[in-house]
């Protein structure tokens, strides 16, 4: 049994295409065509995603305002309320078969938190979790958000850690449905803004933290054949402003 965690850094990619890639990988994992746990890392263009737990008032911004700022909107199948992804944010999508770990959603959510807390410790930030408020916090400020979908115990969606994100994007919404939440970033917490260096450090820390939390050996790879290209299907057309037409119907 493999205990590898294949890490694939997709770089700068649109939300829609990576969403399709995740769905495809999840399907392949369920079908047994993939046998390794995978961690996709990506930096998205600005996008707001609305999870299954989104409340009516969580996205007060008008479509026009979002469009003006070049922010797309997706309704997706993950748990949780509204959130933002964009430049400067390290997004991780673990495609993990929980049957090989524990068939326990809460365990998995706590592992994701632990992985991020571990990563932040490596970076010199004392972070922790808050009961009932899934995510990673430091001093009452929120550093990372988590929202997942699980299909036949295979996970997708995942976490988003603000590295040097333009935090004003979060003003467009009520992130995670928590009023008055203060979002922060690694850069802000450390008082550092040496973009390239900090990004690389964070990336490595997150890979190490996640692998440790899931008890897997990280293997960074160039894209293996099986997911070198996103599998396009349906209406997945990648990024577009206010992508309301995107149908979040999960894997058939």
């Amino acid at each position, binding site marked *: 049994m493999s205990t590898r965690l294949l890490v694939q850094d997709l770089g700068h990619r649109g939300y829609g295409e990576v969403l399709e890639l995740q769905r495809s990988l999840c399907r392949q994992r369920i079908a047994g065509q993939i046998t390794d746990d995978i961690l996709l890392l990506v930096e998205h263009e600005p996008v707001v995603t*609305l*999870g*299954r*737990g*989104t*409340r*009516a*008032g969580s*996205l007060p911004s*008008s*479509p026009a305002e979002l469009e003006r700022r070049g922010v797309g*909107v997706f*309704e997706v*199948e*993950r*748990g*949780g*309320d509204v959130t933002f992804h964009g430049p400067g944010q390290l997004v991780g999508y673990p495609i993990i078969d929980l049957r090989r770990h524990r068939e*326990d*959603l*809460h*365990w*998995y*959510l706590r592992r994701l938190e632990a992985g991020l807390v571990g990563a932040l410790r490596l970076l010199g930030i004392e972070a922790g979790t808050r009961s*009932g*408020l*899934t*995510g990673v916090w430091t001093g009452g400020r929120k550093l990372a958000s*988590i*929202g*997942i*979908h*699980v*299909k*036949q115990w295979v996970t997708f969606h995942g976490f988003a850690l603000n590295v040097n994100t333009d935090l004003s994007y979060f003003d467009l919404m009520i992130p*995670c*449905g*928590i*009023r*008055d939440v203060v979002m922060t970033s690694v850069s802000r917490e450390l008082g550092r803004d040496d973009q390239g260096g900090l990004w690389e450090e964070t990336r490595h820390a997150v890979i190490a933290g996640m692998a440790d939390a899931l008890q897997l050996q990280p293997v960074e790879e160039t894209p293996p054949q099986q997911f070198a290209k996103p599998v396009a299907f*349906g*209406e997945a057309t990648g990024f577009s402003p*206010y992508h*309301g*037409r995107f*149908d*979040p119907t*999960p894997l058939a």
Partner: protein
Amino acid sequence: MPTNVVMEALSPTMEEGRLVEWKKQEGDAVAVGDVLAEVETDKAVMELVARAAGTLLKHIVEAGATVPVSEPVAVIGSPGDDTGEGGKRGGGEAGAGQRGSGASGEKDRGAAGQRDSKESQGTQPSPGQSRPVSMPPAPPAGAATEHRPSPESPSGSKDNGVKSDSPAPARDQQAEPRVKASPLARRIAAERGVNLVGITGSGPEGRVVARDLEGVAAKAQSSTAPPPSRPAAQPYTDVPLSQIRKTIARRLAQSIGPVPTFYLTTEVDMERIWEARQAQLALSGAKGAVGKLESGEGGRDVSVSFNDITIKAVALALRQHPACNAWWQDDRIRYWNEVHVSMAVAIEEGLITPVIRHADQKTLREIAAESRDLAGRARERRLKPEEYTGGTFSVSNLGMLDIDEFTAIINPPEAAILAVGRIGQKAVGHEDAVVLRRRMRLTMSCDHRVIDGATGAQFLKTLKGMLENPLTLVW
């Protein structure tokens, strides 16, 4: 054999899950492993998968409800199966309390659960003593004259004092318009009280997505914070449909739509019944003690009403005309050998039809006592499901409200209903003279698939004859 689908523990520490969206609708075929629904707990969404094959007979909870682990959420079985016991149930306890506090937000999956936080009860024909072995499917409830009450919830804790829903058989489902909408759109609509019907969806296949609700949403928001200079005086009040209202609406539409109904009206001379009843009243008034003894109702005197007399007469007439004592069963007609008369009772939220079983075999006094008891408990919503299901013919009486005559809507699967008007004095020809007589109009609504014109007319003629000759009711 129907199988319950339960809210599964997606984690040992999970106590409840929010049913986000149904992926299979009532009536859909289901194979083992099919995704039935999405369930959200904490920040995770997982799919609820079928463990049994068959037909999804019933959603016990609606999308948006929060359901404790291992509580049933749906029933899978064969199309004919009785989904019996569990009615639709809202699990939504979690939504309400925490909503105001922002910080508790993440755990709180919001208001969606509230929508349906009402206990309810399924219907099942009484497993009565002398019924045929093969039980009919639960008589779909809630037609013109039916409404099911909310029996006291056993725990007493969840019951907000309302509601019910009909676990209608799968075949009934197409009657309900289904709007394609994303779970988020549904949720937003529910929170804002927006009806998705009539909203044009911009998603694939016209699916309504959150964006489509924006215009509507904006209005809703502005109305929550009216400018102080202009006090909010809404010209109307929107009341979301309660489950019972929905059920009544659906069932009535279903009835008047597919049921080819015709109406027969006759006028009955009530003079002799009137006299008989006056005599009986005088008797029980003068000899109260005797009346009490005879009533056998723990000393409570029971006066026999015209409605009781009508029910008794209907039951006896049905004995002679079994063709009118029948259920339409889609592929067959079920002629009942027993006579169970449903009587429509108006209650606060609608109406309900408690059933007087074996009404043909009961004395007037027994019927009077039973109808009084049933009607009383119906108004207190304390009827058991078997007490308001399984009727074979309905009687609806608006005479006490001064209605001369009316047409009632059939309560499927029953094939007919009798609408009873008021008893009033009229100038009529009688024994070659115009005289004042007490008269009562009866209108029978008949399902033409079961009852033909002459069949119904013969029944009415018998009924009229009995009412005009009250001794036939005693003999």
